[in-house]
């Protein structure tokens, strides 16, 4: 469960990224964060990862106050979350298999666990046959699927995605969304920041819209634009 209570965040240059933002996300929910660039979507994600510190208010993840976590406890927080980025962030000198295994190695999993989980994840994202290939031999959609396998391999309870379809064509984007849906069906909370309106409209999930650091809309089964707006 993710809870933001009156969260404020201002950057050093004076830009107000979040202004008194409150938001509750239940376990197992699928939430789109929408809004223009710079609206504050990425700031929420960065606060959740404790990559940034909030100025005031509270951010709880599974009832734990993120602001109160010590530096040494950040890894525990991050292991609850799988992250997917717009630019995939794969290691070019490692194979598909190694990229996914790397995420397990760095959290000190055993070789036995690695050999069991990595193939499972690769088959989930449909890349079992490409496990020995390198990222530059794959299409963008395939690379993003590798990064999803990597994000999910340590079985996080939350999947966080920051513009995961930003670099992909519509067809590939839709494949990624089907995967997210599947992951969500299995019980993982999915929080996705995006400004891909086709996807948001098609998925019919909860939509939280942010504008200039304020939440201006929160709909159960929304579209990219609010119904009362004229477009």
């Amino acid at each position: 469960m993710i809870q933001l209570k009156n969260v404020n965040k201002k950057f050093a240059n004076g830009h107000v990224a979040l202004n008194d933002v409150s938001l509750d996300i239940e376990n197992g929910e699928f939430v789109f964060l929408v809004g223009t660039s710079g609206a504050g979507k990425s700031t929420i994600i960065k606060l959740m990862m404790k990559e940034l510190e909030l100025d005031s208010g509270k951010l709880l993840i599974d009832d734990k106050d993120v602001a109160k976590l010590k530096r040494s406890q950040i890894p525990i927080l991050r292991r609850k979350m799988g992250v997917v980025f717009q630019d995939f962030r794969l290691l070019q000198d490692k194979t598909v298999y190694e990229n996914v295994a790397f995420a397990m190695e760095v959290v000190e999993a055993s070789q036995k666990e690695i050999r069991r989980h990595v193939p499972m994840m690769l088959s989930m994202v449909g890349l079992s046959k490409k496990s020995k290939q390198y990222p530059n031999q794959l299409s963008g959609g395939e690379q993003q699927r590798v990064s999803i396998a990597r994000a999910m391999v340590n079985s996080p309870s939350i999947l966080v995605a920051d513009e995961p379809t930003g670099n992909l064509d519509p067809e590939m984007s839709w494949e990624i969304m089907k995967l997210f849906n599947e992951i969500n069906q299995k019980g993982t909370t999915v929080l996705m920041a995006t400004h891909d309106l086709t996807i948001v409209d098609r998925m019919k999930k909860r939509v939280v819209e942010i504008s200039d650091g304020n939440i201006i809309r929160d709909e159960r089964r929304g579209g990219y634009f609010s119904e009362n707006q004229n477009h």
Partner: protein
Amino acid sequence: MEILSEMKGEVDISVKIRTTKFFIKEGFGNLHKNKTMSTASISSVIAALLVIAIFFIIVMNVDYAASKLESQIEMMVYLKDDLSETIVSSMSKEIKTVSAVKDVQFVSKAQALKDLNDKWGDNAYLLEGLEGENPLPDSFKVTLTDPSKADTVALALASISNIERVVYGKEELDKLLKATYILRISSLIIITILVFISVFIISNTIKLTVYARRREINIMKYVGATDWFVRGPFIVEGMLLGLLGSLITTLVVGAGYYYCSNLIQNQMLGLLSVTLMPFKALISSLTLLLGTIGLLIGVVGSFLSVRKFIKV
């Protein structure tokens, strides 16, 4: 499902072994993968260690020469006239019991005159006529185990009865002791400064390899790797760089020293009573010093250079 969501409070040994294996695997792998950067780092380690090694050799040799001089210093203990042989031999025994005394040698007045004769050589005619009434006293030549204790020894000797006077080159000895002391302290300071400079240079070189791999660090941090886990492979890499650098430097400097000391000993330079510290005495301390410093600058250097990138 949450296999790894909680970090165990107690450290499992098998996890530790596995982690160490991962560090070594990644450390070696990175060294191999980034050949250009590794070569650059090792070269700067070698450059820094070469300066330290040459400086160390100079210091060791000056110190060696100074200790040699120190050990040659002797005290003259002049005795009162007309002492019986039994008294003299009991005095000799007593002097031997004084701490820091290495050896005592009796010099009779006749012997002293003869020595003086030999010493003055052509000018010995000045001593003519003294044979009848030799004005020189009997004496002991005392050598010391620790020349810095000369003052206390002199005091102790003065309190023994039948001793007329204790004479030693106090000023010269003090100067020599002071000089070697200053040499030792300043060389320690200079070596420390050189080590700091090397750490700085090496951490900058390693920083380039770390910078090249910032994506990797970034991913590790996002996935939930601990700071120590991210540092591990870099520290292993730094250790390897440092050790390789010190190994090469030791071989080069060691071989150079061996060659030079042989040359000096065997060629006419040997006539100049220049004696270098023996190769065998030097090489073990040199290896130890360079190995330690190499390891230190490798580890500290990588630790410092990862610091900035780890704060994600």
